[in-house]
């Protein structure tokens, strides 16, 4: 098979990943590797499709396995094979792929890999220096190991929803499947450290990554305030336990959009004075916190959020527009950093993809291609990597192993 010379300078050139993971956490871990040059092969099936391929938004609102923007955004720079692991030949074929891979990623509940005979110990027989990361909700062991879940639910189980609510109200949590966008960084860090260890010693290993256990590390002092002081911290809306004003304030409508908001925060006296100066209200420095909040809200309500942000930031007050997804696409700072990548997809067309949030000065990320079609790379992977003959390939195709 050809070697893409542009790929050989990449950080993870020569690293190959068999990515069995689905939905958010796993694909976002392997995306870090793919966007920095690893050859990531997603292993999926049309018999039991990756759930995100069935989730909106769809181009033209037409559901289709190769038409989901949700799936696409998490799977840039990757390849994809279709393989039915329930087929009698499925597991044996999977192991032939894994034998050619450095890393296996998966995020099923633990019984799936056990049922297929694809635990770490099993897979070491075909690849002795393998690194494998398993990322179930609750880890590989323990009374809840077989429990299912979603990121939207796990944020509740990890204590994050308890801290995300209007004061005294029900714990609604964030409006996103939050832990799906939190724990991949921890999982990727563990995986990269294991890869570094292998680079130095030749030794692979298994990583049992319980998503809940990583997510608890995002609760700041919540645990210690309880274990040391016996206090259960409570949610404060947009607020902060030590600082006021510290909140979101409604601004003037923009066109017919009357849902424009600005975050204004004050952490010391100098910032309070600066805020009062910008508003032209010297009395603000002596108001009590509730009165000041009300005064700020009345002031912002008749002003444009972007204009307020500029004026406050220029005066040294930490403030920022509550940006919508549309605002992010027009954000000059994100544009300066080249956050969004426009990539062409065979069926979805020219679409925006999110790149990593950090910039490496010498080996920056490159999103090399749009998300793969289901089974797009079957011929390359099965023939060129695994080494199937044309006859064998056709045999498996006909038997339904590649469904």
């Amino acid at each position, binding site marked *: 098979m050809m070697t893409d010379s542009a790929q050989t300078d990449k*950080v993870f050139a020569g690293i190959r990943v068999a990515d069995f993971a689905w939905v958010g956490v796993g694909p976002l871990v392997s995306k870090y590797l793919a966007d920095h040059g690893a050859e990531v092969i997603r292993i999926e099936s049309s018999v039991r499709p990756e759930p995100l391929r069935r989730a909106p938004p769809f181009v033209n609102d037409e559901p289709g396995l190769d038409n989901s923007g949700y799936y696409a955004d998490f799977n840039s720079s990757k390849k994809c094979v279709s393989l039915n692991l329930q087929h009698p030949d499925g597991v044996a074929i999977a192991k032939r792929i894994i034998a050619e891979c450095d890393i296996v990623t998966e995020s099923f509940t633990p019984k799936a890999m056990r049922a297929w005979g694809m635990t770490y110990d099993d897979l070491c027989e075909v690849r002795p220096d393998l690194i494998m990361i398993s990322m179930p909700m609750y880890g590989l062991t323990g009374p809840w190991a077989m429990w299912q879940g979603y990121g*939207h639910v796990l944020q509740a*189980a990890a204590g994050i929803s308890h801290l995300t609510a209007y004061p005294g109200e029900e714990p609604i949590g964030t*409006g996103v499947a939050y832990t799906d966008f939190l724990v991949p960084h921890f999982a990727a860090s563990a995986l990269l450290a294991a890869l570094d260890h292998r680079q130095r010693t030749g030794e692979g290993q298994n990583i049992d990554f319980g998503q809940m*256990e990583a997510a608890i590390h995002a609760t700041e002092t919540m645990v210690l*305030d309880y274990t040391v002081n016996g206090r259960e911290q409570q949610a404060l809306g947009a607020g902060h336990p030590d600082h006021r004003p510290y909140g979101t304030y409604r601004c003037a409508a923009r066109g017919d959009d009357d849902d424009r908001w600005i*975050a204004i925060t004050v952490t010391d006296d100098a910032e309070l004075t600066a805020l009062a100066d910008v508003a032209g209200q010297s009395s603000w420095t002596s108001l009590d916190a509730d009165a000041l909040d009300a005064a700020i809200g009345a002031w912002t309500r008749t002003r444009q959020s972007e204009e307020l942000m500029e004026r406050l930031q220029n005066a040294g007050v930490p403030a920022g527009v509550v940006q919508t997804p549309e605002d992010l696409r027009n954000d000059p700072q994100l544009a*300066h950093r080249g956050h969004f990548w426009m990539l062409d997809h065979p069926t979805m067309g020219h679409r925006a993809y999110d790149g990593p949030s950090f910039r490496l000065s010498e080996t920056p990320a490159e999103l090399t291609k749009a998300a793969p079609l289901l089974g797009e790379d079957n011929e390359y992977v099965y023939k060129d990597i695994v080494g199937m003959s044309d006859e064998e390939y056709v045999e498996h195709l006909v038997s339904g192993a590649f469904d």
Partner: protein
Amino acid sequence: MTTPSAAGPLAPFRVIDLTNELGQLAGRMLGDLGAEVIKVEPPGGDESRFIGPFRGDVVDPEQSLHWWTFNNNKLSATLDLTNQRGQELFDLLLERADFLVETCPPDAAAALGLGVETLRSSHPSLVHTSITPFGREGPYANWKATDLVGTAMGGLSSLCGAPGRPPIRPTASQGYTQASAQAVVGTLIAHYQRTKTGQGQHVDQSMQEAVTFTHDNASPTWDIRRINNGRPGNGREIGGYKSGQYVYEAADGYVAALSYGGLFGLTARQTIEWLDHHGMARDLTSEDWLAKLDATTGLLIPPAGDDADYLNETLVAFCKRFTRAQLVSEAQQIRNGWGIVHTPKDLLDNEHLSDRGYWVEIEHEEAHVTYPGPWAKLSKTPLTVRHRAPHIGEHNGYVYGDLLGISEDEIRSLASANVI
């Protein structure tokens, strides 16, 4: 007394940590992975030692639970970086380090010797990670940001809260958490490259951009449908479609149960059977309802209007009757992924976490304190929680004496001159 110890995959490496609350978790994660992390703080103690809450609510730079949480597994050396001798010592420290993680404001970096080009020419093998609100360069580079400004500007707050009401944020700082955790990923990617070439590089981490990672499907939804996902309140929004309620009150607290508890979509039939088993399915077992809900299996778009209200009322009444543990364990038996909304006390009492040995006790002079344990279980090079957060300058002897080879007399004179 704590001593440097070797454990974990990054045990051969040393990190200089010059971070405030924006980046402290990054240094700690590297420490959790086994690296020796030296927190460099000003002679009077780091500003984050004054962030609450405090043990017993007494303000004391050695009793900040914020400091304890984010600085265990680190050593402390004091150093005045505004002083020329201090900068010389810092340079010697960097000579012996593999990583520098710092949160210096971009417009102050050059004066402290933390310019990107300066560090790259003086320490070419160093991986230098800067964590800043908006990135080291660009039109907003010198703007200030707290956590809320980060969650607002990065797009998370617009997705948190209820329609018509103010956008909110998790009260535990997620802008800082996201920036720190993603910075570790960037740092380790740069590190891997160094294992091949010997060359370090600069990793420029922006908090705002880190927060954009959290927007779920909102970015492609805007790109494809020109719809902004909004604040769903007690619910969820996917691809611009509002989903059903998901947090319900149980007899003893709350449960999280997506999509009206799974009463529509793939789990509808077994969920109705479960409610029926308790005699609480109301009319949902009727042919009419089953046909209606079967029609939703291929979609994530829920019923609306009166049907939605009926589903919701059914589930509200059901959940109130039972405890969280009973609801969630029965839901899990029918492969329906409900979860418990845990309070801090619930987490500490949780049998699953205990069974996995999650919590760790760390010895402080004042007490043994329970901390969250390692965030990944590596079979060959385990992560460890080795020791408590350091006192101010606790490891000056090790850092300046053992590492830099400075005599005890000189260390004393540096201390009396307030350089360290």
